[in-house]
């Protein structure tokens, strides 16, 4: 299955590259309206046609992909960082701290997290600038998605704490903080990286769900959520098949992430 993994990585890199170069590749800005051409069919000028406000769909897809592909890893990084802090420290120190933190983590994991996300999102302002809405959406995902990572990292930190090399380091006179920084944290890196990769597709899908419900990133900034939301206005009479392209790309990108993760697990086995 190595070639599948390689193909998935190449595909992800190509999509990421195209979206990062959106300023040069896209024929127009994501917010530019071609007022004389609303709902235009795909053509040489507009590869995927235009939306009901006359904005070039191809450009919006590139910019939207950039938003989702850059910020989902950022949210995953935040979640992993919180997971390392919470899970790593509780696993390393053990005792009552570990018991309390793990009970809180279990509690957090048992909550229906989309309901929680909706509640916390609703507390924050809805009518804000696109940049603030991007920050709010992905910061929320990062702050609420730490529990799974913390649980895994805590288990790993516990086994490192009880390992022989840590015992040897303790016997050599290493202090708590030095022990943590030099011996425990480097050993937690592989699990933290795995949790980071696992969180990315989850956050991309969650952002898409939020965006399709109108609770994600504000217009005119596109994201996969708002692009997929356009399907709600699709009709057999006036709709264009090109409206389904963002959905196909979405499935391909999330699927590629899953393939990379699956292959990683197989390689580890």
């Amino acid at each position, binding site marked *: 299955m190595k070639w599948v993994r390689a193909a998935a990585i190449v595909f992800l890199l190509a999509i990421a590259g195209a979206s990062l170069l959106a300023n040069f590749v896209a024929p127009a800005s994501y917010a530019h309206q071609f007022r004389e051409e609303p709902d235009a069919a795909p053509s040489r000028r507009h590869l995927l046609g235009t939306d009901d406000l006359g904005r070039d769909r191809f450009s919006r897809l590139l910019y939207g992909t950039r938003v989702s592909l850059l910020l989902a890893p950022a949210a995953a990084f935040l979640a992993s960082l919180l997971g390392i802090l919470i899970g790593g420290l509780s696993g390393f120190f053990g005792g009552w701290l570990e018991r309390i933190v793990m009970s809180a983590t279990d509690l957090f994991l048992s909550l229906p997290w989309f309901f929680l996300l909706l509640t916390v999102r609703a507390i924050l302002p809805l009518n804000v600038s696109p940049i603030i809405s991007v920050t709010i959406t992905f910061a929320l995902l990062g702050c609420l998605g730490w529990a799974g990572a913390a649980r895994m990292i805590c288990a790993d930190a516990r086994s490192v704490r009880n390992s022989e090399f840590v015992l040897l380091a303790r016997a050599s006179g290493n202090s708590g903080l030095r022990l943590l920084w030099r011996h425990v944290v480097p050993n937690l890196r592989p699990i933290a990286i795995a949790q980071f990769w696992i969180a990315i597709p989850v956050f991309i899908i969650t952002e898409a769900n939020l965006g399709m419900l109108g609770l994600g990133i504000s217009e005119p900034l596109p994201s996969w959520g708002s692009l*997929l939301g356009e399907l709600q206005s699709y009709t057999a009479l006036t709709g264009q098949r090109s409206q389904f392209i963002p959905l196909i790309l979405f499935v391909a990108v999330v699927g590629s992430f899953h393939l990379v993760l699956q292959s990683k697990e197989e390689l580890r086995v």
Partner: protein
Amino acid sequence: MHHIAKHVGKLLFTLVLGGFLAATLVRFAPGFGTDEAQIDFRLNNQSIDALRHTQESLGGFYLHYCERLLHGDFGMSRTLQRPVAELIEERMPETLKSVGWGLLLAWLTGLSLACIGVMSRSALFDTAAGIVCGALLCLPAAAVAVLFVLARAPERLVLGIVVLPQIYRYARNLLVRSLNQPHVLTARAKGLGTLRVLLWHVITPAAPQLLAVAGVSASLAFTAAIPTEALCDLPGIGQLAWKAAMGRDLYLLVTLTVLVTAVTLIANSTCELLGSIVGARQA
């Protein structure tokens, strides 16, 4: 008995803590206690303070909140101007129906696919089922809901399609692990039929873990109910939560979150308990 008491205690603790967090969220949410009457220029500062209930501390507010909850009073929805209890009573059956049908479809299809794939040992079937479920796993619930609306397919099945890939994946892994046990090889060598091997020697040992997955699938179905009901126009709890979020109706939203948390916790605890009973009998 000790196990049941532990589960009930954990459930109660979670609900009390969840209720406290909910009350805290409502109490400190921007705009709490404000009313249009406050902009009446005839009111002085004391009257406005009285309207805002600013004297009530968090502890006092939480006690009142719990007292009202115990009496079945969940407060009033700000946007819909109706008692929350009435709204929940009206919409809960619709959600339970959707979740029930969805879980039934997902479990029947997912478990059947996993059983056929594992017992037939057909690489083609396994790959095909894996690709279909993998593709479904990549779709957000909201997109599945929209696709169902466009295809004019029955909306009640959306939850089943959303939960199906998760169930297939977990069930397949559990059954493969169970199938590789030495006692299954012995049973086969003794000439037992495929169905008998599957039912008695593959599914039964995996039953405790499958029950744990059943608990998780209930939580997944309730989570997927929000986008599904909102986009398919099904008048359930999910749609109500979405409307509450759009209208920043925190009283309603927080009550719904606590309620769904309670339902999923009960489902999880029941499945976990059943799993431990089955596991103990097997041991």
